[in-house]
C-alpha cells in the first residue's frame, strides 16, 4: 500500500542523483559480474564434478603429477590391475591411453588427417551413458588378440572427413595405415575421456597384464555411492604404500621423490593440475574485489544516510515503525543491487563468450580442448547471483540502516544540526578507510605480480632463435618401426628409427628453402625431463644433493638449426655411435659452475638415481662438448633449470620426437616441404602439431596469459574501486567533521594545523592498512609460487609501486576534501549540515 510511496520516494532520490546512482550501480554490476564470471569459469572448468548422465562424479586415477615436467603420468597396467582387484569402493572403472591416429580412406589413399584418438576399454560408452547415433559401440571381444581391428568414429570425423557418408558403418578405413572397420558413430560433442575423436579398443594385454612394463594407462572411475571421495583417497594412499614397496628396481622411476605414485583426482581437476593455484588465486582476488565493491557501495549509501539524516529524524519523530525505516534504508540498496545484478548477468555472459573464443584459439593447433571446456551461465550461477545480490543488499543496506537507527534524532530536530558524529560512527568510518586500503593493497599486489610475471614470461629469452622456424611432432608408424621387448632386437630397432630421422633430415636439407633441421626430445622453451647428475670425483653423499639438470635427446648437427652454438669441444659425430665411451654434451651453465677452469671436456658425469647399488660402477658419460644455454619449460615454472645435458639421438631413437626446421621463404612452403619429405621417406609416418616455433613456445602460456588478462581487468577494476572508494570514504568521514573543523578554526586553529591533524590520521590508517595488506598479499603470493616462478621485478612492482600508489591515493583523498572545508568560512562550516 503506502509502501509504494516509499518506493516512489527512493526512486525519486536515486533519480535526483544520477551520477551517484550510476556509479553505485556500476560498482555493483562490476563486482557481481566478475564474481559470476569467475564462478561460472571455475565451476565449469574445475569444481563442478563431471557427472555425465549418472549421479556419481567421475574421478581420474593416475600417477602423481610430474611437477618438474608439468604433465600427467599414467599408471603401470599391472598396478592398475591391482587397483581393480583390491579396491572395493570402486563401482565402475575403465582404462585408456591417449594417442593420435592418422585417419585415411582405403578407396583413394590421398589425404590422411591426424585426429585425437584413444585406446580405450569397451565399457567407456556404458560408463558415460552415451549411445552411438549409428552402429554399435565397442565390445569386450574387440580387445582380444586376433580380433578384427575396429574403430568407433566421432561425429566430426564422420561429417568432415567422410563427408557424412551414409554407409560408413561397416566400411573399412585406415587408422594409422591399418585397415580398420568402422562399427559406430558417436553423437556430436562426445569426446570422452577428453578430446577423443575416435575410439579404438585397447589391447587385451594391457587390461590383464602379467607383469610390470613401460606402459602407462589412465583410468576413469566412479565410486560406489556410499563412499566419499576422501575415504577413497585414504584407501588409495594405503594401497600406494603397498604397491610402491613391491615395485621392482626397473620401474621404481614411477614414483616421485616422496614415494608418491597412485593418486585419485576429481576428473576435471586432474586436467588443470598445473593451473590449479592460479585458478584459486583468481577466485580469491575476485572475492576480494566483491568485498571491496560491497564496502564501496555500503560507504556510498552511508554517506547518503548522513546527508539524509535530518529527513530520517523527522520520520522518526512522526512515528515511523522501525521495520519501515529499515526497509526504507534498504530500498535504495535493493534498487541498486538488483539493477546491478541484471547488468552483472550481461557482463558475465559477455566474459564467458569471450572465454569460449579464447579456448578455441588456445587449442586450435592441437585440438586438445577438453570437451567440458565450454563455459556458460547455468542455474547454479544464477542462484549464486541471487544469493550474492541478497547478501549485497544486506551488507550495503545494513550499514546505513544501522546508522539511521543509532542516531541522536532529538538533537537534529531541535537545533537543525546534524547529530554530531559519535565515537562509534567515527570508529566505523576509520575501519572503512583501513579496510579499503587493505583490500585494495591485496588485490592490486596480486594482480600486478601475476601480470608482470606472465608478461615477462612472454618476453622470456629461451636462448634459441625462433625466427623462421617451424616445429612439429613426428610419430613413426609402429607397423614399420616396431619396438620389440626382446633385448636382441633393441639395437636394430633403434638404428632403424634413427635412420628415418636422418633420412628425413637429409632429404629436407637438400631442399633450397630449408636451412637446417634439428630433432630434440623437447625443444627449448617447452617442457623437459630432469634428473640429478653426478660428477666424477665429486659425487654427493645423497643422490639428491647432486646438481639437477634437464636431459634432452638431440640429433647430430642440430644446434645451428635452432640458433644454438657449440662453445667448446665438438658436436656428436658418427664415431660416437660405436665408440666404447658414452658421450654427452653439457651447456655453458654447467661448465661455468662446475668446471670454472674451462676443463669440462673429457670429464665424466652420470645420472644419479634414488637407490643405486652402493658400488655402482658404470653409467659414466664423457663430456665432449659445451653448448650455449637454453631454457626448457615455460617461464611460469619453478622447475626451469638452468642446467641442461644432451644425449645423442642415435643411442635412443625415440618413436616420436619433436623437430625444428629453419627455413627461408614462407612458412607455408616450409610446412609443405616437411610433409613432402616425410611422405618420401615413409608415408605412414605422422606429422602433427605443425606450427611456428613462436607458437609452440607460447602454447603453454596461452591459458596463463588469458588468465592474466582477467587479472589485468581485475587490476583495473580494483584501481578504480580503490581510488573511488578511498576517496569517498575519506571524503565522507571528513565532511562529517565539517562543524568540528569550523569550531576549531573559530577557536583560532591555523589552516596548516587542521591539515596536519587530518593528514596525520591518514598516515596512521595507511600504516595499519598497508602493513596488514602487504602481509596478506605476501601470503597469497607465496601460495601461488607452487606453480610459477615470480621474478624479482614483479615483486618490486607489486610490493613497492602498489603501496606507493595507494599512499598517493589516500593522501590525495584526504587532502582534497580537508582543503575544501578549510577554505570555507568558519561560520559556514559551523552551520553546515
Amino acid at each position, binding site marked *: 500500500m503506502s509502501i509504494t510511496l516509499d518506493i516512489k*520516494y527512493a526512486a525519486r532520490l536515486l533519480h535526483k542523483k544520477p551520477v551517484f546512482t550510476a556509479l553505485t550501480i556500476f560498482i555493483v554490476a562490476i563486482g557481481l559480474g566478475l564474481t559470476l564470471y569467475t564462478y561460472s569459469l571455475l565451476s565449469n572448468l574445475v569444481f563442478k564434478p563431471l557427472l555425465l548422465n549418472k549421479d556419481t562424479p567421475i574421478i581420474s586415477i593416475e600417477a602423481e603429477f610430474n611437477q618438474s615436467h608439468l604433465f600427467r603420468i599414467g599408471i603401470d597396467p599391472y598396478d592398475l590391475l591391482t587397483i581393480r582387484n583390491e579396491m572395493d569402493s570402486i563401482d565402475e572403472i575403465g582404462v585408456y591411453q591417449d594417442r593420435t591416429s592418422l585417419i585415411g580412406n582405403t578407396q583413394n589413399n590421398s589425404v590422411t588427417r591426424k585426429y585425437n584418438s584413444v585406446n580405450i576399454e569397451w565399457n567407456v560408452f556404458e560408463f558415460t551413458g552415451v549411445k552411438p547415433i549409428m552402429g554399435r559401440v565397442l565390445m569386450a571381444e574387440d580387445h582380444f588378440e586376433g580380433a578384427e581391428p575396429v574403430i568407433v568414429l566421432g561425429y566430426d570425423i564422420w561429417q568432415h572427413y567422410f563427408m557424412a557418408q551414409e554407409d560408413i558403418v561397416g566400411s573399412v578405413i585406415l587408422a594409422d595405415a591399418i585397415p580398420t572397420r568402422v562399427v559406430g558413430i558417436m553423437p556430436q560433442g562426445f569426446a570422452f575421456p577428453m578430446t577423443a575423436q575416435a575410439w579404438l579398443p585397447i589391447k587385451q594385454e594391457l587390461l590383464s597384464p602379467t607383469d610390470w612394463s613401460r606402459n602407462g594407462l589412465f583410468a576413469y572411475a566412479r565410486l560406489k555411492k556410499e563412499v566419499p571421495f576422501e575415504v577413497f583417497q585414504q584407501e588409495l594412499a594405503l594401497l600406494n604404500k603397498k604397491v610402491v614397496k613391491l615395485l621392482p628396481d626397473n620401474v621404481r622411476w614411477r614414483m616421485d621423490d616422496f614415494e608418491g605414485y597412485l593418486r585419485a583426482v576429481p576428473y576435471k581437476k586432474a586436467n588443470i593440475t598445473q593451473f590449479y593455484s592460479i585458478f584459486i588465486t583468481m577466485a580469491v582476488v575476485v572475492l576480494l574485489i566483491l568485498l571491496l565493491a560491497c564496502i564501496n557501495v555500503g560507504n556510498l549509501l552511508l554517506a547518503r544516510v548522513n546527508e539524509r539524516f535530518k529527513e530520517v529524524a523527522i*520520520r522518526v519523530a512522526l*512515528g515511523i515503525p522501525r521495520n519501515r525505516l529499515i526497509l526504507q534504508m534498504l530500498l535504495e540498496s535493493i534498487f541498486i543491487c538488483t539493477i546491478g545484478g541484471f547488468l552483472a548477468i550481461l557482463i558475465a555472459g559477455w566474459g564467458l563468450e569471450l572465454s569460449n573464443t579464447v579456448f578455441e584459439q588456445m587449442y586450435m593447433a592441437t585440438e586438445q580442448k577438453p570437451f567440458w571446456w565450454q563455459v556458460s551461465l547455468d542455474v547454479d550461477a544464477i542462484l549464486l547471483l541471487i544469493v550474492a545480490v541478497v547478501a549485497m543488499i544486506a551488507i550495503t543496506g545494513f550499514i546505513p540502516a544501522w546508522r539511521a537507527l543509532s542516531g541522536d534524532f532529538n538533537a537534529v530536530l531541535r537545533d537543525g544540526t546534524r547529530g554530531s558524529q559519535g565515537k562509534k560512527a567515527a570508529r566505523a568510518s576509520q575501519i572503512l578507510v583501513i579496510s579499503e586500503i587493505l583490500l585494495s593493497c591485496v588485490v592490486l599486489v596480486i594482480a600486478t605480480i601475476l601480470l608482470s610475471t606472465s608478461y615477462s614470461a612472454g618476453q622470456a629469452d629461451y636462448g634459441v632463435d625462433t625466427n623462421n622456424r617451424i616445429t612439429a611432432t613426428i610419430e613413426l608408424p609402429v607397423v614399420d618401426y616396431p619396438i620389440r621387448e626382446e633385448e636382441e632386437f633393441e639395437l636394430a630397432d633403434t638404428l632403424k628409427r634413427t635412420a628415418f630421422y636422418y633420412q628425413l633430415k637429409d632429404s629436407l636439407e637438400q631442399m633450397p628453402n630449408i636451412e637446417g633441421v634439428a630433432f630434440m626430445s623437447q625443444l627449448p622453451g617447452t617442457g623437459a625431463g630432469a634428473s640429478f647428475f653426478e660428477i666424477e670425483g665429486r659425487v654427493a653423499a645423497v643422490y639428491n644433493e647432486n646438481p639437477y639438470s634437464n636431459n634432452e635427446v638431440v640429433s647430430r648437427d642440430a644446434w645451428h638449426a635452432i640458433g644454438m652454438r657449440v662453445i667448446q669441444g665438438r658436436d656428436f659425430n658418427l664415431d660416437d655411435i660405436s665408440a666404447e665411451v658414452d658421450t654427452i654434451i653439457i651447456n655453458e651453465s654447467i661448465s661455468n659452475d662446475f668446471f670454472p677452469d674451462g676443463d669440462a671436456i673429457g670429464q665424466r658425469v652420470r645420472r644419479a638415481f634414488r637407490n643405486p647399488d652402493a658400488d655402482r660402477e658404470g653409467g659414466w658419460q664423457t663430456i665432449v662438448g659445451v653448448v650455449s644455454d637454453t631454457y626448457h619449460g615455460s617461464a611460469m615454472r619453478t622447475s626451469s633449470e638452468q642446467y641442461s645435458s644432451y644425449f645423442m639421438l642415435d643411442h635412443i631413437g625415440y618413436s616420436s620426437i619433436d623437430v625444428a626446421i629453419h627455413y627461408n621463404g614462407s612458412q607455408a612452403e616450409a610446412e609443405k616441404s616437411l610433409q613432402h619429405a616425410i611422405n618420401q621417406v615413409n608415408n605412414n609416418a605422422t606429422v602433427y602439431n605443425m606450427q611456428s616455433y613462436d607458437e609452440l613456445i607460447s602454447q603453454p602460456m596461452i591459458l596463463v596469459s588469458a588468465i592474466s588478462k582477467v587479472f589485468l581487468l581485475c587490476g583495473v577494476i580494483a584501481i578504480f574501486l580503490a581510488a573511488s572508494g578511498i576517496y569517498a570514504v575519506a571524503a565522507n568521514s571528513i565532511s562529517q567533521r565539517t562543524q568540528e573543523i569550523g569550531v576549531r578554526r573559530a577557536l583560532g586553529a591555523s589552516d596548516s594545523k587542521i591539515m596536519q591533524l587530518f593528514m596525520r590520521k591518514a598516515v596512521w590508517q595507511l600504516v595499519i592498512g598497508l602493513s596488514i595488506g602487504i602481509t596478506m598479499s605476501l601470503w597469497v603470493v607465496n601460495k601461488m609460487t607452487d606453480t610459477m616462478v615470480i621474478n624479482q621485478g614483479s615483486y618490486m612492482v607489486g610490493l613497492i609501486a602498489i603501496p606507493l600508489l595507494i599512499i598517493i591515493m589516500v593522501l590525495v583523498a584526504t587532502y582534497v576534501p580537508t582543503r575544501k572545508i578549510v577554505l570555507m568560512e568558519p561560520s559556514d562550516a559551523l552551520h553546515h549540515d
Partner: protein
Amino acid sequence: MKSNNNTNNTTDIRNAENAAQVLVNLHEIKKIFYTDDVETHALNNINLTINKGEYLSISGPSGCGKSTLLSLLGLLDTSSSGSYTLAGHDVSDLNRDERAAIRNKEIGFIFQAFNLISDLTVAENVELPLTYRSDFDAKQRAAMVNTALEKVDMLHRAHHFPSQLSGGQQQRVAVARAISAKPSIILADEPTGNLDSKNAQIVMALLDQLHQEGATICMVTHDPRSAARAERMIEVFDGKIVADQRTETPTAIAV
C-alpha cells in the same frame, strides 16, 4: 451522527467525566544527561497534568529544560526516572516500536526549524504520518491531507516542494502535517522562532483556531506575548516548574 457511533468507544473513554479528562500526567520526572563525566540535571522532579483540550505554554530562560520537557512529552526521549501516563496508559516503559506507534497516532509535532522533508511535496509531507499506519487507504489519506491543508490555507501549494515556499508557508505545512492524523496532543517547540512577526502571527492564529476546535496544544516559547495566548502558562527554571497559572482571557491579548 450515525457515523460517530463507530468511534464512540475511544471518544467515550477520553471524555469520561473524572480522570479521563486528564490527557497527560507526568509524575516525579527527572532527566539527567551524562556527557564526559558531567551530569546535567535537565529536569528535576517534574509533576505536570494536562487536561484534554488545554492550550498550554511553557516558557523560561534558555537552557532551563523546556525542550527536554517537550521531548519527553513527545516520546522523543526517555526520562531518567518518574512516570508518564498518556491518555490513561503508562508510556514510561515502552519499547522503541511502541513509542513510535504512539508518536504516530497521538502526537503532532511542530518544530522551530519546520523540519519538512525537502524531497517530498507539500502533500506528501502532510501525508507522511498517515502512511506509517495501515488504517487508511490512499483515498482516505488524500482526503485527510486535503482537509489539513485547507485548514492551514496551503491547498493551492500541495504539489510544491518545501524549498519553493516561504518560512511561514513551510510552518503552516508543518502545522497541517501535525494535525493531519488528528493527534491527541500537538507539541510545538518555539514554532515562531524562525519566523518574522507577520508570519508568526498567522501561525499563532492557526494554533488558536485549532485550540478552539478542541485540540490540546503544548507550546514552548520564550516570547511572553505568544505565551500569553495560551490559557495556561507554565514557567520552568533550572529544570523545575516554578509557576503554573491560568490566564483569565486566553486570546484577549492578541495584537
